[in-house]
């Protein structure tokens, strides 16, 4: 054991308390508080029914998947604003590819959807990691660019997705009674969490976001890490696009459009720092569920759309303020 410094009293209670970082638990406390609030207020409106609760998870599945990607990007010290429009373009590419090749709809749809997402991620990554352009501006530009491509590809029409295998696996299907969207969420979060917490790659992402120069001089290939996080974000946006297309049995340019702010809020509330070096995949999952629950509960309370936006904005503000307080102290 190392000797503790004389300045710090070695009281075991103190050191345990010091180890527990309250900021990291804000999302769980907030989640419980809001859950209990809705459970009481909406006890007669069906909030607590299994059907409604499962529905919340199903509805948040794409946002949760996107949130995992954003955790990696933010942790590496960058930001991705383009994943929302990437979702739409991926869904559209998948739907169009399936319509063009109905005989091999399933594999072609997956390839086209994920491929489109990875391509956008790679373009972002190359511009940011190798041309050293700021990620905020690059992804702001690709966000608009990709959204425009989505619109012009389809002349603003919706494209139906009819392949039963595809809509089953990415939408309404289930395995042993567990809806496929729940399975996707659990698998993605589990893999994301392990990669983030338990691998050298995850450690290098955090080091890059914390102190890129320190990472560089200790032999971490910072440019490669930054390219990878954007590929992950793009690829997961592609997967989210497949999930939307499967669940709605159609793809439209509006998919994912409103998710950008929700997902950023979910990730920040979940304990990931906006300026890198620290984050949590599990926290992002809970943050995303919290956002979904908020959405659901406010609708059940009968709030108008504009009131919902106001209340959601206020709650996000409070949550972000609480979770960032530690940092700005």
């Amino acid at each position: 054991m190392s000797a503790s410094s004389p300045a710090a009293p070695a009281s075991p209670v103190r050191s345990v308390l010091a180890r527990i970082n309250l900021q990291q638990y804000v999302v769980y406390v907030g989640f419980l508080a809001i859950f209990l609030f809705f459970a009481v207020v909406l006890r007669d409106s069906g909030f607590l029914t299994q059907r409604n609760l499962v529905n919340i998870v199903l509805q948040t599945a794409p946002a949760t998947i996107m949130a995992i990607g954003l955790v990696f990007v933010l942790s590496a010290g960058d930001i991705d604003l383009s994943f929302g429009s990437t979702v739409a373009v991926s869904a559209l590419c998948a739907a169009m590819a399936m319509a063009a090749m109905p005989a091999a709809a399933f594999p072609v749809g997956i390839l086209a959807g994920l491929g489109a997402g990875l391509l956008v991620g790679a373009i972002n990554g190359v511009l940011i990691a190798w041309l050293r352009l700021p990620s905020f501006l690059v992804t702001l530009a690709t966000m608009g660019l990709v959204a425009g491509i989505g619109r012009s590809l389809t002349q603003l029409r919706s494209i139906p997705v009819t392949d039963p295998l595809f809509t089953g696996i990415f939408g309404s299907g289930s395995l042993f009674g567990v809806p496929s969207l729940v399975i996707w969420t659990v698998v993605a979060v589990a893999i994301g969490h392990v990669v983030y917490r338990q691998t050298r790659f995850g450690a290098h992402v955090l080091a890059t976001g914390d102190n890129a120069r320190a990472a560089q001089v200790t032999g971490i290939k910072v440019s490669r890490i930054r390219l990878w996080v954007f590929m992950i974000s793009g690829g997961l946006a592609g997967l989210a696009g497949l999930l939307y297309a499967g669940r709605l049995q159609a793809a439209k340019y509006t998919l994912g459009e409103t998710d950008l702010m929700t997902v950023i809020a979910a990730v920040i509330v979940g304990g990931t720092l906006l300026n890198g070096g620290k984050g949590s995949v599990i926290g992002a999952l809970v943050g995303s569920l919290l956002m979904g629950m908020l959405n659901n509960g406010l609708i059940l309370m009968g709030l108008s759309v504009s009131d919902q936006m106001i209340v959601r904005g206020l709650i996000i503000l409070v949550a972000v303020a609480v979770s960032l307080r530690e940092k700005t102290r």
Partner: protein
Amino acid sequence: MLDTANAPVLELSNIRKAFGGIVAIEDFSLDVRAGEVVALVGDNGAGKSTLIKIISGVHAPTSGAIRIDGQEVSMPNATKAREHGIEVVYQDLALVDQQPVYMNLFLGRELTKGPLRVLDRRRMIAETERLVTELDVRIPSAHATISDLSGGQRQGIAIARATHWARKLVLLDEPTAALGVAETAKVEKTVAALKSRNIGVLIISHSLDQVFRLSDRICVLRRGKQIGVRETAKTDKNEIVSMITGV
């Protein structure tokens, strides 16, 4: 005394470095032998940090040769320098603030276990505890987050990292500039321990007292040129000061 044990681990010959039209280092030659502490002194802007960056692979020299154990090497990046057994303690320490001590000690060289190559935190923590005890770096625990530590503790971690991984040479860039008396003494003890492990040390310091306490030889740099190398035992502060200032 140039037997094999004391053969130079590092030889710089005729190093020149220009940034565009500005010459930062001109015709610089120096060797550092195994187990020898060489101090690099000079005024601000003399080119000391540039030299450290050349040896550690951050900058490539414009011309000249770097030899390690007599072998000429090219040092295109920091990873390469580390492969050659060279470790650096940077002035800004190059620590990752929001990570625990043990992750910083293993930064870029994390230990893994199993076929999935997951991080072996337990082994990294155990190694860290052994190391900080050995070097007497007083930190609350291997789990402590760097940002919660004092300047001296952070410096201790950076030095512990370098000494742990170094096989041939440690470069120290102003290692005690921000430290108190007791912490400085501890760093100096660590440097002496490196010597006994037969590792070469090149140290930049502004404190001539420290230079005279620690070093075997002193190399003076002025405006990118080597003014001279003196054996510490055979010179005094006045001579070194006049070499630094040129008066």
